[in-house]
């Protein structure tokens, strides 16, 4: 379908007086390489940060995790990868993520999270996504939705998830669509006609804008992604989940969207989490590979992209009786991107000793995630302190030197 036809079909809904999504055409018309891209990746289930960014120089770490601790860096491929004198990286990330560290486009912020006594996954995931701190009961919007509203012109944003989770809810309309499954087909004229009939029924109802946007997004995504070569069909292991979504997300970030969100589950390793190999190692390996694919597919745009990986909290410093770990507190945020001042572990840090643990149980939180993200957004988007206050009410922006 030619560009003219595409524009026409996208705006046929507009001809019915329903309007097109503002900002989209502005983005398509101007050069696409200048605006910064942001992707937030939420790991649901509280991934074990302590075995990912490893405090290998602490003897307490090795005592506390007799079965789970990763060995100090050595020539053994199952030992921690040396990053600094204190910190190592899980060996499962050697081929995927370590090169970004070496290229100085990956940084870590340990001892980060949201200070809140609850160790409830569900409550904390929500609180982190809503971004109003631990004590707010305002659930009207999530922090990425508020960020969108503060950038001019309003950047197209999208949640690459099957449901619209809190992070993108709010006054700005943000579409959602899962990209992890199956083949993407081109749009048919019947689909367009059907969507017009249905959209007309919703005129004047509360769901009108949502319905209209859903059709537009679906049709736009299908136009941009239909006909892609599925490398998996060539006999290699089929990528699933984030692995399948990563190249698609890259393409959408190149073509249309500026801010995105995706989540990855199954990190809650209470039992048998494994050490250098095992359940956690497998998850980290999949995640690392997917991020590497994303960066590769973004090409020149990687220089203008920031990816933030975070989780609702960390896990217990000591292993439990089932060779796993339980709900903890302080976690580690990853920040990667072509423009990131990487190859460093940033923010406030302490040595991992029994006396520095929170409640003698888990890592403390020394770097509020909202402060860190506010500092990052301030630099990435040139935001004023008033804008930052609207995005993260009550948080103190801190520039820890990420970009």
């Amino acid at each position, binding site marked *: 379908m030619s560009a003219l036809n595409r524009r026409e079909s996208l705006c046929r809904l507009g001809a019915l007086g329903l309007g097109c999504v503002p900002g989209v055409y502005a983005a398509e018309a101007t050069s696409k390489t200048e605006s910064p891209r942001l992707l937030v990746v939420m790991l649901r289930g509280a991934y074990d940060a302590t075995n990912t960014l490893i405090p290998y120089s602490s003897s307490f770490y090795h005592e506390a995790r007799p079965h789970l601790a990763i060995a100090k860096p050595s020539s053994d491929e199952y030992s921690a990868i040396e990053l600094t004198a204190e910190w190592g990286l899980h060996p499962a990330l050697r081929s995927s993520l370590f090169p970004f560290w070496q290229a100085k486009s990956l940084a870590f912020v340990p001892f980060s999270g949201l200070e809140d*006594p*609850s*160790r*409830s*996954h*569900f*409550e904390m995931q929500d609180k982190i996504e809503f971004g109003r701190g631990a004590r707010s009961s305002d659930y009207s919007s999530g922090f990425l939705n508020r960020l969108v509203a503060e950038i001019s012109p309003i950047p197209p944003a999208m*949640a690459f998830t*099957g*449901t*619209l989770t809190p992070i993108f*809810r709010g006054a700005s*309309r943000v*579409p*959602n*669509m*899962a990209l992890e499954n199956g083949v993407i087909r081109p749009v048919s004229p019947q689909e367009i006609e*059907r*969507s017009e*009939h*249905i959209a*007309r*029924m*919703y*005129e*004047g*109802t509360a*769901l009108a804008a*949502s*319905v*209209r*946007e*859903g*059709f537009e*997004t*679906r049709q736009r995504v299908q136009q941009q992604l239909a006909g892609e070569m599925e490398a998996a069909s060539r006999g290699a292991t089929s990528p699933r989940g984030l692995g399948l979504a990563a190249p698609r997300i890259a393409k959408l970030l190149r073509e249309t969207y500026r801010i995105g969100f995706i989540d990855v*589950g*199954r990190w809650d390793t*209470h*039992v048998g989490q494994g050490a250098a190999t095992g359940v956690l190692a497998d998850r980290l390996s999949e995640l690392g590979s997917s991020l590497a694919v994303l960066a590769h597919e973004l090409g020149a745009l990687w220089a203008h992209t920031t990816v933030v990986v975070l989780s609702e909290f960390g896990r217990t410093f000591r292993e*439990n*009786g*089932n060779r796993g770990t*339980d*709900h903890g507190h302080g976690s580690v945020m990853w920040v990667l991107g072509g423009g990131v001042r990487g190859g460093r572990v940033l923010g406030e840090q302490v040595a991992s000793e029994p006396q520095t643990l929170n*409640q003698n149980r888990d890592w403390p939180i020394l770097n509020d995630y909202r402060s860190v993200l506010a500092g990052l957004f301030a630099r990435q988007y040139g935001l004023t302190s008033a804008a930052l206050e609207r995005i993260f009410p009550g948080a103190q922006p801190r520039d820890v030197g990420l970009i």
Partner: protein
Amino acid sequence: MSRTNRRHTFANWLQVCVLVCAGFWVSGVVQAGEREDVLWLNRLSFGATPQSLLELQKMGRGSWLTRQLRADTADPLPPAVQERINALRITQQTGLQLLTHQAELPRGDSKEARVATAKQIRAESAALRHETVERALLQAVYSPNQLRELLTWFWFNHFNVAAHGPVTIMALVGDYEQYAIRRHATGRFRDLLEAVVTHPAMLVYLNNNRNVRGRINENYARELMELHTLGVDGGYTQQDVQQLAKILTGLGTSQPGQEPAPEAVRFSQGMAEFVPKRHEPGGKVLLGQKIDREGWAQIQQALDVLARHPATARYISLKLARYFVADEPPPELISRLSKRFLESEGDISAVMQTLVMSPEFEASLGKKFKDPVQYVISAIRLVSPGEPADLRAHRIQGWLRLLEQPLYGRQTPDGYPMTAAAWNGSGQMTQRFDVALQIAQAHHGETPPKLLSRLLGSQDAWSQNVLLPGLSGRSRETLQEAQNQPVTWRQLLLSTPEFMFR
């Protein structure tokens, strides 16, 4: 043919005639309050149908509700549905028999043999899970005990287990749903709680089978308070979590065929057991109360404390009100329901009576956004339920998967969310319209329409008298344009804004 068989056949035919005639009766008589009754039924069932409306109008709301909430008995399923359910392995064999069969499969000497056995067990367990899906869908679509089915879904979701991963859960999710959940769905909360706490599916899911003296696992204790009883704001502390974890030690699963340990107490047909020597002895303190009994009695004491707690009354009332009234239920209503919960000692049907008879309930009708399960089942019930023998569970579960709410598919213990914001994102609305098309196409393919199946259409009397008057002008105009295209007409009907709500 024996006399008994002849009587049954005659009874079946009589039933058929009554239902067919009833269908025609409804079409002829537009009773006062029909639209209101349909809205009422839409909320308290998986979707009003001409038959269910007729029943309601014959009995009146009070009697209908009382009948639906009976804890001791239930109305029989239509014979064709019962027949299909009776043919399932999960009906013919107990959970214990299913597990014993798996335990007795030859393990073999080689690694290959063991791997092959493991694969076989996994495949069989998945098949049992699918049978559970089939049974649940058959009842959601055809059961006369609609409110019990809704409450079964609600309580399963509240006490969620994910039937993926451990084969035990996959194999036993049907047993869990039937004996822990459905059996107690309209009974006493304390009974429901204990049935869940002593079921192997839950003990495996939240790792309590690994919670033993000297090796504490807190997972179940935390979720038992946060998600199942007090709620996250219920006022418990990390200390309470640790104490409850200790109280729950020794309660786990048993090995099929193994003799019980000395002084062990067994539950769930013997699939779960409390083993005293695995229990952390001594008194505990929970929520400021002394827990001073010993062994299994100590666990029961803790369950009493939790089930009677005012925070539990509030939290359960909030969840019931969220599911049956509104996303943000009025605080006044929650207060009244909590009070009823406490004074009735956790009688679920008493609380439901108060809820349904409340002015807040009446005022909320037609305004609650359907979650995907309610959407898909109500669509099937309305547009064409077809013959029970033809219901294709795989296909329906596929639609639910597209809409992100497959049965037994919620991975996390918090259950699926119950508010509109979780389900009405723009991408989800588009997906819903896709599913509406598939539902409309699917039943059109199954011609010719048999005596008991109704292919709802634009000329159908029920559409003309009950459905269409409830739609907006825009919806009716759009439907009018498709009146000669039955598939498109049905798809558009299922896509109307009005059909998205109950």
